[in-house]
């Protein structure tokens, strides 16, 4: 999957989701937007298990979806993350659970073509001031 740079009004859903996923990763990890590409590995971006949790949380807010634990564990790279979001969005549009793992969905009031501000508004984790209060996470305990 590659990201084509067209800025026309007919920007398709896949491209919109790609851009928003990358935006969420960059904002959540506090990286320059241009440093995150479809080819970036989580390792190269310094994303650890706690960052992954924060990114999943922010993706759920950005797209108004619910990502279940089992699906989340299988995501190994950014293209898989985008595919997962697209699957959940498609399921939301159809009003059925996504895939055999039965990903559950939250309410479907958010537009697929959400604006830049939706992640900022709905995600307290994107506010650097709240960073220290982020719930301890991941897999140790």
């Amino acid at each position, binding site marked *: 999957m590659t990201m084509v740079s067209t800025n026309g009004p007919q920007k398709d859903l896949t491209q919109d989701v790609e851009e928003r996923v990358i935006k969420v990763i960059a904002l959540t990890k506090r990286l320059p937007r241009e440093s995150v590409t479809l080819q970036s590995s989580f390792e190269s971006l310094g994303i650890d298990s706690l960052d992954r949790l924060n990114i999943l949380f922010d993706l759920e807010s950005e797209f108004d979806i619910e990502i279940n634990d089992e699906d989340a564990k299988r995501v190994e790279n950014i293209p898989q993350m985008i595919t997962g979001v697209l699957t959940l969005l498609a399921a939301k549009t159809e009003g059925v659970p996504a895939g055999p793992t039965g990903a559950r969905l939250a309410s479907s009031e958010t537009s697929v073509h959400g604006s830049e501000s939706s992640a900022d508004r709905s995600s307290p984790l994107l506010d650097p001031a709240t960073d220290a209060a982020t719930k301890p*996470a991941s897999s140790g305990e």
Partner: protein
Amino acid sequence: MRRVVITGAGVISPLGRDLPAFAASLAAGRSGIGPLTIVDTTQLRFSNGAEVSNYTADEYFEARDASLMERFAQFAVIAAREAIAQAGVAWTQELREEAAVITGSCLGGRGVEEAGYWELFHNGKNRVHPLTIPLSMTNAGTSHISMAFGIEGPSYTISTACSSSAHAIGQAFHMVRSGAAPMAITGGSEAPFFIGGLKAWEAMRVISKDTCRPFSAERTGMVLGEGAAMLVLEPLETALARGATPLVEIAGFGMSADAGHITNPVASGPARAMRLALRDADLAPEQIGYINAHGTATEANDRTETAAIRSVFGTQTDRLAVSSTKSMHGHALGAAGAFEAVASMLALSTGLLPPTANFLTADPACDLDVIPNQARAAVVEACLSNSFAFGGLNAVLAFKRIG
């Protein structure tokens, strides 16, 4: 330095509401995990937990007394009653003034805050219940034990997440060993089943929707538990002099911090805590026959703990029995170390090692003898009990069989 023994233990747990019931469940490999009933789980992605089933405060307390204690503090007092009764403590004014109460809890009575805050945030109420602070404070367990028995010596609470009660027992052990206190009531209590807290655990994506399967290839995470366990510690000589029965010796305690990641475990910190516990107890690795593992059934813990055990025990590892009783009593956070201290005590004193329940198939990354599903009769001289907390804070207790 005094030798320190346990002369009484009390438990209120998902495996039964007293020590004999707890012991019987461990011996039978019976899990206390099931569908949660005390909270509405429709908002949650998981629905299982290990509850103290059919618990009602009025079975244990006058209504007025119960109203002053959040569930976790009630559990603390109930477990302390049983421990003190079993130890047959003969209170004197001097003993009351010098005995210590040191408990562990992760969340304390935080559950009580929710209802009041909901009214404040949503229903236009401008006040919360006046007991919100005394009910919710994490030291309430210690305070109510102190008040219930008139114990006036050094009393405090340790909150180090999942190591809380192991740290508490270790501190109590230090105080009795050094002579700073002639006796200590110590252990931990927890009541984590309230919706906000459960949502927070859910967000960490470490809670199993299934059950708790430590060290199993099929493990899918931890299952929360609740309850309390308390111990009476005193010097061996004092116990024998007053005709009490020492149940097990606490021989050593090791602590370490990973100084690494706030949630990701590493093997080196836990390994160092185990080595320090062995050294403190003056025990060689070959004297240890059993380890009650931290064993949360998360992907990372079980793999990392296995590596830590292998690094400490080397070639001895293959003759070690290791089990996680969290498979039965769940992960009771700040009470976990206390449940597991009691399980360790029972393993040595009864000669029956508790199993890892719910075990399906072995994970090559967890190549330990985990006593799958069935308790095992074995006379073991000494054992360790591991507790590792988020934040990288590790506490390991070493126990020795009496006689």
